[in-house]
């Protein structure tokens, strides 16, 4: 197994065993998606109209719950120093952690979304668009989140500051993701919005490992 795959598998194993990753994010996502229809009431048209925005915001907030631990755990217990001295470049370390976060949080949220779309009276086509938008967009959430997590690494209450840093950066993801669903609801094609979302996600996944690695380096210098 390559060092990259080794780190990825370890982080997935830790996420599964710590109980604070996927399970917490999925529960939060499901709870928010269940509470909104209860609050909005039985107006099925209104529920379908707000579904894209609500589910996207819920997905971003759910992913945020575990983002602050992306580097923090390894930083606090000294693993990050040992990992930083391994043959794996810090950029590859950051990419492995982003991928592990997406596999343990973003992907399960995406897979759960069609079920939650039922609560919002979404038809098949907008549900599929929502699913695709989350599949394309959640890697960007993990990637942008990694930058925030690395910037707040040595801060005592970094978890509280993290949303303030990354939520504004994630505005395009929510706009394009929810926008694609809204377009399909209006009988138009969501392809353009999904394309923009894919471009943003591609850029984020491509660039964030470099930004996160630079920030981790600064924090290791302490």
């Amino acid at each position, binding site marked *: 197994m390559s*060092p990259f795959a080794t780190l990825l598998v*370890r982080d997935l194993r830790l996420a599964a065993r710590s109980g604070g990753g996927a399970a917490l994010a999925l529960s939060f996502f499901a709870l928010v998606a269940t509470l909104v229809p209860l609050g909005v009431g039985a107006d099925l048209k209104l529920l379908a109209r707000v579904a894209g925005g609500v589910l996207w915001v819920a997905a971003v907030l759910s992913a945020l719950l575990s983002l602050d631990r992306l580097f923090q755990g390894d930083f606090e217990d*000294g693993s990050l*120093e040992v990992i930083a001295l*391994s043959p794996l470049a810090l950029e590859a370390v950051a990419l492995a952690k982003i991928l592990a976060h997406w596999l343990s949080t973003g992907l399960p949220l995406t897979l759960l979304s069609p079920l939650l779309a039922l609560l919002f009276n979404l038809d098949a086509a907008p549900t599929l668009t929502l699913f695709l938008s989350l599949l394309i967009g959640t890697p960007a959430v993990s990637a942008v989140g990694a930058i925030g997590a690395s910037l707040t690494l040595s801060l005592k209450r970094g978890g509280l500051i993290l949303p303030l840093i990354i939520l504004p950066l994630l505005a395009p993801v929510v706009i394009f993701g929810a926008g694609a669903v809204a377009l399909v609801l209006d009988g138009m094609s969501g392809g353009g919005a999904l394309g923009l979302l894919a471009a943003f996600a591609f850029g984020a996944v491509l660039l964030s490992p470099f930004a996160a690695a630079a920030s981790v380096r600064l924090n290791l210098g302490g």
Partner: protein
Amino acid sequence: MITSLTAEKLACTRGDRKLFDTLSFRVSAGQALAVEGANGAGKTSLLRMIAGFLAPAAGRLVLKSAQAEITDAEERGKSVGWLGHHDGLKPQLTVREQLDFFARLYGRAPDPSALERVGLARQAELPCRYLSAGQRRRLALARLLVSERPLWLLDEPFAALDTAGQALIAQAMARHCGHGGIIIAATHDPLGLGNESLKL
């Protein structure tokens, strides 16, 4: 194989405070250097500087091998085996999983005999959260052994270890130097290797 590590007029500042200035030393293959000094004198900072985590305010570090001279901090780090203040262990992983992870991360095949060498073979399937502080330190030593790095940087290597554990790490250090490795250790205790000392 590295032949020496040389520090030339190193300086370290933390905030407004100057920890050390014009610090020079040379450690050759097969030698150990004990870095001594009061708390806050800069022992850990010096180790972090050698590992490449911290940039010197002035001066340079040169790692020499038979083929090349390495001055780049990141490249130097690829020769470093690190035993820091924290053991770098995850409570959720078993002792064997933890060691296999570090071995594979460093591009080595998992070596079950490393656990026997540090006296943790019986605890192999035990999650790290159940280990005592001394056992955690022994596992960190096993990690150092499987990394097979020539330059060991040890921060208080005897901390939390009982007499048998201290003997174990002293034995490992002697063997490492015997095989041509270099050890630089920040310590309050004698290394017992007939080594040089550097007072900060």
